């Protein structure tokens, strides 16, 4: 009896190391199915990123060439006034669009969640701009904000002759004109995500809060919003990815003007690479963009995912 026990124990211990490599083949079909995506991610995203970073240290002009040029592309980048304007605009645009999209999206969702009449119609209307591309959005707002045929002329025709609202023609506030268009286009989607999150909150919680006599706004700020943390994270990632790549909206609305005051980094990259036929400079600028994304992303990912393991 004892021997059989021993024997089976030995057999088990022998089988265990033999069984471990089998893990690689567990869910084999799922792994094979995901292989193309993994390859795409590694070859195209990582591979091309490395290629771009490497070529940013060369003096490539129209064609990519491996002629080392040290840090001169970066030196030129950081001595170009247009680059500073671009970063400043991206920072203003990024921070404000993050705050406003989240805030407006949540408030709209909360209002819709109060079981109002015609919710479907209103939801559709608010989400509708999201169906438009940035180019169309940009053109629409270029016309709305045009002083000769848009908002300003309408208000003036009502009799308020001194009314002035032409953000797209004022270098100091042009970026806010672009921000308005971005908010108009983007808040609908965030509202829908928030609304889905609100609908996911258990009715019982509302009942409990009501019994305890907690005012509605306090229930939102102290109970509902903390519960919706994953929804906020999803929204944040969606908004952030839209901010870094903002390009087409600027092209359609202002073309970078007036006087280059609405330039953004993505446009600097495109213009350097294709209009100026200076690939090295464009690569250097896009490497800086990547670097800034990494600087923001790593601490966030560490807090988000590292924190859970500890807790």
């Amino acid at each position, binding site marked *: 009896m004892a021997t059989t026990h021993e024997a089976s124990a030995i057999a088990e211990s022998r089988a265990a190391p033999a069984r471990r490599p089998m893990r690689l083949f567990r869910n084999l079909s799922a792994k094979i199915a995901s292989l193309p995506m993994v390859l795409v991610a590694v070859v195209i995203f990582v591979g091309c990123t490395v290629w771009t970073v490497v070529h940013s240290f060369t003096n490539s002009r129209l064609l990519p060439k491996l002629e080392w040029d040290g840090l001169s592309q970066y030196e030129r980048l950081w001595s170009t006034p247009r680059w500073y304007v671009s970063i400043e605009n991206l920072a203003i645009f990024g921070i404000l669009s993050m705050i406003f999209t989240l805030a407006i999206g949540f408030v709209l969702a909360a209002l819709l969640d109060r079981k109002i009449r015609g919710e479907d119609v209103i939801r559709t209307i608010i989400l509708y701009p999201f169906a438009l591309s940035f180019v169309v959005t940009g053109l629409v707002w270029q016309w709305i904000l045009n002083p000769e045929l848009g908002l300003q002329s309408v208000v003036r025709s009502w009799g308020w002759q001194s009314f002035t609202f*032409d953000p797209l023609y004022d270098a100091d506030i042009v970026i806010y004109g672009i921000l308005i268009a971005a908010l108009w286009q983007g808040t609908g989607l965030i509202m829908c995500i928030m609304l889905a999150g609100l609908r996911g909150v258990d009715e019982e919680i509302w009942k409990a809060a009501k019994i305890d006599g907690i005012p509605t706004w306090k229930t939102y700020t102290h109970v509902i919003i903390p519960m919706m943390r994953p929804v906020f994270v999803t929204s944040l990632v969606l908004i952030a990815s839209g901010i870094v790549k903002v390009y087409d909206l600027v092209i359609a609305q202002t073309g970078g003007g007036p006087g280059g*005051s609405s330039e953004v980094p993505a446009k600097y990259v495109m213009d350097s690479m294709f209009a100026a*036929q200076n690939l090295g400079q464009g690569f250097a600028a896009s490497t800086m963009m990547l670097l800034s994304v990494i600087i923001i992303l790593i601490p966030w990912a560490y807090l988000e995912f590292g924190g859970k393991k500890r807790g």
Partner: protein
Amino acid sequence: MKLTTSLLGATALCAATAAHAVDLEVTHWWTSGGEANAVAKFAEALNATGTHTWVDGAIAGGGDTARPIMISRILGGDPMDAFQFNHGRQAEELIEAGLLLDLTDVAEANGWKDLVNPSDLLDACTYEGRIYCVPVNIHSWQWMWLSNKAYEDAGLAVPTNWQEFVDTADELRAAGKIPLALGGQPWQSGGAFQVMAVALAGEEAWLKVYRDKDAEAVMGPEFTSVFEAAAQAREFAQGSNVQDWNQATNLVITDQAGAQIMGDWAQGEFALAGEVAGTDYTCLPGLGVTEVISTGGDAFYFPAQDDPEVTQAQKDLAQLLISPEVQVSFNAAKGSLPVRGDVNLEDVNDCTRKGLDILAAGNIVPATEQLLSPDTAQQINDLMTEFWASTDMSAADAQQRFSDIIANAD
């Protein structure tokens, strides 16, 4: 079985027709009404030869949009058969990389060297002694267009040179007109500055800066006066809140603005609006100070192909584009000047006549595309856009930054 035979038959038929005639895909960015009309003359002429067919590959959105698309197609190994470029330094690297067809034998066989006038145009197509493109027209930047009616409304005489324009600008403003119309696109401010530089600093100082890349010359007295004039012009341009060049031209056509500094393509807009040179509008080449015209323009390049038949067809097309009949019909439609000295344009208006006379007298300067790399041109455009749009930047600051760009230019 039946299907296989018919498919084989079809393939054989295709192969047979391909052996006789070649479809030439030509990409260009001439999409506005007048431009499309002009490029159709090329297509008609090619199709009329009966051997080759013109396949139109127009790309809308102007040169800045079209150039990257063309370049990426050539680099990607799927080149078109011919493409339009502004000749000069934009295609330099494509030539270095051996991606473009060498046209030297066609050029020599047909004596392009003797018939292309001014010869600068062919020089711009030449790289290390070999010819890579065929120039098709001359467009020059050096023009100021003035609205006669706008000055009449203000009770002023139409200026005949820059100084008179400056002197009357304030009175024009007082009469409710914008003295100088300027669109917001970067190349417009870069171009307007460059026109003022040639006109006010003189040809010699201008060449020192733009051709010899002499940063010292930028800080010299000639260019100081240019920057001061540009600062004045910036004041005059306040209130022209438009983006596109033709919208700015339209301000002059509708007499809301006194003048615009723009290339001779603006004349197409005046013609379209039914205005007559001399009575409705006035043109001042070289701002009425230094009467020169720059010999910029368009040219066609031909990407290298493996198939010798296609190569032959490309060379046929190159010769066709520069032939006298095609030059006349194309340039008449385009509103530009022909690249040959031996053809006559009939019924030209006052302004085109002025241009032809200056050309005949040999008062020409090279176009900036021939002197500056696209990289440097872009930097200058960026600086000028900033300078023209914001009154914060002083003329001296702009001059300093311009000198830095020229010092680092290649």
